[in-house]
């Protein structure tokens, strides 16, 4: 078996109909599962940046990136550093939590994780939390012990290489 790991790829594209489908397909046909994808305006007018996070074998990823680059609307493909220390990676989640016995614990957790309460209702709250995927996962795990999670919406991952890493590239 080939080694599997998590890869983050940044793709700059012209935002035309069907681009997302074309790019996603190239990962899918080699059996790469896309665990997160975000699309948004970039620093260049007309171009949007897709940040794609996939799980899959290490050996084919370079070749898939080259195939993605062949999609006519794709302007640039840059793999983001595979080393956690060399990149900044953030995701935001909105979490709707229903109070159970331990309302206080919920507020404490939000504070410890530096979350924000963005809505307060009779029966519960909505928390906004930002961080690396691992932080969000830890928060979800803990809060589910104090309250009942009703709904989670996550933005997907935004990531980029750190200054010193991207300069070296």
């Amino acid at each position, binding site marked *: 078996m080939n080694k599997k790991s998590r890869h983050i790829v940044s793709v700059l594209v012209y935002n035309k109909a*069907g681009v997302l489908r074309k790019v996603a397909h190239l990962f899918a046909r080699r059996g790469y599962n896309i665990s997160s994808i975000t699309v948004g305006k970039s620093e260049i007018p007309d171009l949007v940046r897709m940040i794609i996070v996939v799980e899959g074998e290490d050996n084919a990823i370079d070749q898939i990136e080259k195939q993605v680059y*062949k999609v*006519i609307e794709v*302007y640039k493909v840059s793999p983001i550093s595979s080393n956690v220390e060399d990149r900044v990676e953030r995701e935001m989640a909105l979490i709707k939590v229903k109070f159970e016995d331990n309302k206080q614990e919920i507020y404490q957790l939000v504070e410890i994780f530096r979350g924000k309460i963005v809505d307060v209702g009779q029966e519960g709250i909505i928390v906004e939390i930002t961080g690396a995927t691992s932080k969000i996962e830890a928060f979800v795990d803990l809060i589910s012990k104090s309250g009942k999670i009703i709904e989670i919406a996550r933005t997907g991952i935004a990531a980029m290489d750190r200054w010193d890493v991207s300069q070296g590239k």
Partner: protein
Amino acid sequence: MKKIKGSKMLFEALLKENVDTIFGIPGGAIINVYDELCDYENKIKFYLFRHEQGATHAADGYARATGKPGVVLVTSGPGATNTVTAIATAYMDSIPLVVITGQVPTSMIGTDAFQESDVTGITMPITKHNHLVTNIEEFPQVLKEAFHIATTGRPGPVVIDLPKDIQIAEGTFNYPEEVNLPSYKPNVKGHPRQIKTTMELLKKSKKPLVLVGGGVNLSGTMSLVNRFLDKFGIPAVATLMGRGVKPSNPKLYLPGGIGMHGTYYGNYAVSNSDLLIALGVRFSDRIIGNPKYFAPNAKIVHVDIDPAEIGKNVRVDVPIVGDLRNVLEKFLEYDFEVDFSNWVEELQKIKESHPLTYPKSDKYIKPQYLIEKASEYFPEDTIVVSDVGQNQMWVAQFYKFHNPRSFFCSGGLGTMGYALPAGIGAKIGQPHREVIVFAGDGGFQMNIQELMTINRYKIPLKIVVLDNNSLGMVRQWQQLFFKCRYSATILDDNPEFSKIAEVVGIKALKIQRPDEVEKAMRELAEYEGPMLVHALVDPRENVLPMVPPGGKISEPYLTAPYDENLEKVVKRGGSNE
């Protein structure tokens, strides 16, 4: 500027792109374009086919024969989906096509309207690019980009899905002189340092080998390849798509191919070389066998216009991304003395001790024999189109190709039914060259309806049906790997192909004895009009050598016993006794 309709824009753009030939079948969602065609018939020759797959393969054959893009015009829904196999065929072999499919009006897209299908979705993975036109003002630019993308860099098919309301809508026809696609800039130069490294490796090499691929035919650089071989005295082999190599020193080319059904000496050359210079190949699994044992002693230089090909299937030591013309010209600028004559002689000896051969017979027509004879009687610049299966491999082994762009087949997709329509397209593209089609009995029946097209336009195509009463290539695998259990591969109910041809208005001949072959091939070569030879060939024959799938190409089977039972299984009336 005067406004014109979308349907008219299309033809004006075709004229700007120097398109004078198109292929297709009309229908409701493209009827406005076909109406417009009436006004262009003196400038653009339209060929009506009997099936959209046939029309699209014909455009493919036309493109291979001329180097120009093949243009197809079909309707929405079933018209478009019928082109899919042929588009995929062209995609795998990097053939430039521009396929225009009618579509339901934009307001109805997504409603499951009559004859609606998601053409851009369906063709996404089998096109170099596709586009659904949603605005009349963008249409001229879309057309310009389609031709540019199809024909530049690594060529390939482009689909334009054209809704009916856009065909009718009016807009300004401002055909761009140039394309502006910042995200599409094929790298054509070839890195000078890598080129230098290659030539330094060549200086040090004792056993260099050039592997010529389809990219050489596509880029029109065979003469540069021949010069490169002659200048440095390097021997060469070719893939299925790279035929037509002809250095002035005949010892420098080992004909007959490499890989699964390559020659022993061709595979020997690859397996023993110390420097493999691969030009425009994609290292298909049919060529490399088990990648671990492919060219185990060689440093591999891979020259290709498509960076995604480099390192895909085999390890590469020196990647050169660039246009073969530029790279070969740079290779040829180098001047130094090298002497590979020992290596060339070694290969000649192997070629003599392990020649490409087949068992002779005076009872059965051996397909290999017939192909050799055709090769003798047809002129050197003949275009040969084969179908898929045993017939394809035998043509690749036994036909002698003298020129680039002389041998067309569905190499990558392996599409049965390719040869007949592609042969028609090739003949339309090159009316002054002979075009001969070799098809198996199975594949011939997959687009047999295009015999009518031949008759409609009186296209003087030459056709040989190599009838072994079986889906021979699959039957061969069943004999060798599945204990002779012939599951669904015996076609003992084949029709008289010669009679079918005659009914359609095509001269035909049926032969079944070896002593009839020469005369038939001579007549086929000399006859002025379309003609078909239906040859009953030995049903027991296998394609050899054979490297089992995933095996080492240095260790092919050289022989395999006949399954004598086949004579009984394939019941034939007639004179083989």
